[in-house]
């Protein structure tokens, strides 16, 4: 049963000894509602990126010959794989590379078209990806990526973008680590350290499920 953002906020209220009201108010003054929501959203995205348990698939069709720049989806966080489907029937998973490697490995890659071999996402502007060498034929790209979770607004309409099994790690103990690790009257290193370790335990469990090892 997916958790709504208000249920998550109330769980945090219980853990922080605030009066439970679905996250509407935080009367202690140690944290604000917007602050808690930002912790929730950040931890959700960090967990998704680190664990790779939920991935998005985007297909970019209509890529022209010699077109190297691909626009990434607006909810993109990290790229997992890029597969080139050429109109000539070639299907190839592109290897992640960088500009230094391809500039020195294939010096004329920006001029001479060929079957794409690599993708670069480090040296391109935000939300852009480059493939190289330039494709000699048109085609399409299938992108497997980590998508940002649905923004948690606290209005009760949004559910956590993670299974229940990982909800505690990502949406309870992650934000608690941030809350009790914050410098100020609410700082509690013991609770922050424990909460962070529970968050990490969730990541380790996700790694074991996906890869059989941490």
């Amino acid at each position, binding site marked *: *049963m997916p958790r709504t953002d208000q249920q998550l906020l109330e*769980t945090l209220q*219980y*853990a*922080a*000894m605030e009066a*439970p009201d679905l996250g509407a108010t935080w009367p202690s003054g140690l944290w604000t509602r917007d602050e808690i929501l930002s912790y929730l959203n950040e931890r959700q995205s960090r967990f998704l990126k680190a664990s*790779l*348990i*939920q*991935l998005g*698939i985007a297909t970019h069709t209509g890529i022209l010959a010699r077109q190297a720049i691909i626009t990434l989806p607006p909810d993109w966080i990290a790229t*997992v*794989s890029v*597969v080139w489907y050429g109109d000539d*029937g070639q*299907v*190839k*998973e592109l290897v992640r590379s960088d500009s230094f490697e391809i500039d020195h490995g294939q010096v004329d890659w920006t001029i001479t078209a060929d079957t794409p071999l690599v993708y670069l996402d480090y040296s391109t502007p935000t939300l852009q990806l480059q493939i190289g060498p330039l494709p000699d034929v048109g085609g399409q790209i299938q992108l*497997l990526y980590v998508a940002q979770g649905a923004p948690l607004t606290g209005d009760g309409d949004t559910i956590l973008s993670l*299974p*229940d*099994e*990982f*909800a*505690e*790690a990502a949406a*309870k103990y992650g934000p608690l680590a941030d809350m009790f690790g914050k410098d100020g009257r609410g700082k*509690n*290193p*013991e*609770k*922050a*350290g*424990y909460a*962070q*370790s529970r968050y*990490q*335990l*969730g990541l*380790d*469990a996700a790694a*074991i*499920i*996906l*890869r*059989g*090892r*941490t």
Partner: protein
Amino acid sequence: MAYTQYTLADLEARLAARYESVPFWTQPEARQAINEALCTWNMLTGRWVTRAVMATTPNEYEYVTPAPISYRTRVLWNNRPLSASSREDFNNGRPNWRQETTGSGGAVPTRPMLWAPVSLELIYIWPADLLGHNSLTIDGIMATPQLTVAGDFVDLGEDDLSVLLGFCLHVLTFKKGSVWFQATLPYFTAFLRAAAAENQLITTSQIYRVYMGIDRRDLKPIRGITTPPAMAGLIPGEEG
């Protein structure tokens, strides 16, 4: 004791029997703690399993596991098990694997032989089923039973119930912290130990090793790194 179906009311009564006087938590908190214990137990051990059957699609190598499977553990094609692999092994072993089907001939098998987990819900099979419409059976872990009303029930053994209730007490004392929380750490380690007995892969987790007190960084000093002070007081016998 054989597996029994415990209702939420049973679990709450069992939890109440483990403390005296007036607790510093409310009934909604206790219910949340029970559900957190169930979710964490399922995450670490994959206790609640289920099976789903779907049809293969012609020339398709990519499949999304259907609900109610939370994550998959075993895949069968026409009741014949596929061996587990990985996307990296597919790419390194057969660079053109995406284009290969059961009708490709040559060294490509005539039935799917391997499957690779990509995410919790996405798997690849190799080679792709050329004709499709065959059965693809997915064994996996179902979503954790969440108990919201008194009559909701969950399958549990008596031995599991003991560690789960101890874990609930540990979760409930977090908000109080200090000596009350530290006093419940043995319940948490017992929970982890029981989970590790069900799923030994957990013992490879660094966090597990820290909690169990077997993370002896003092025996292998690396650039003066020591156990973080925040963790120091949590490990019996460890000094900061």
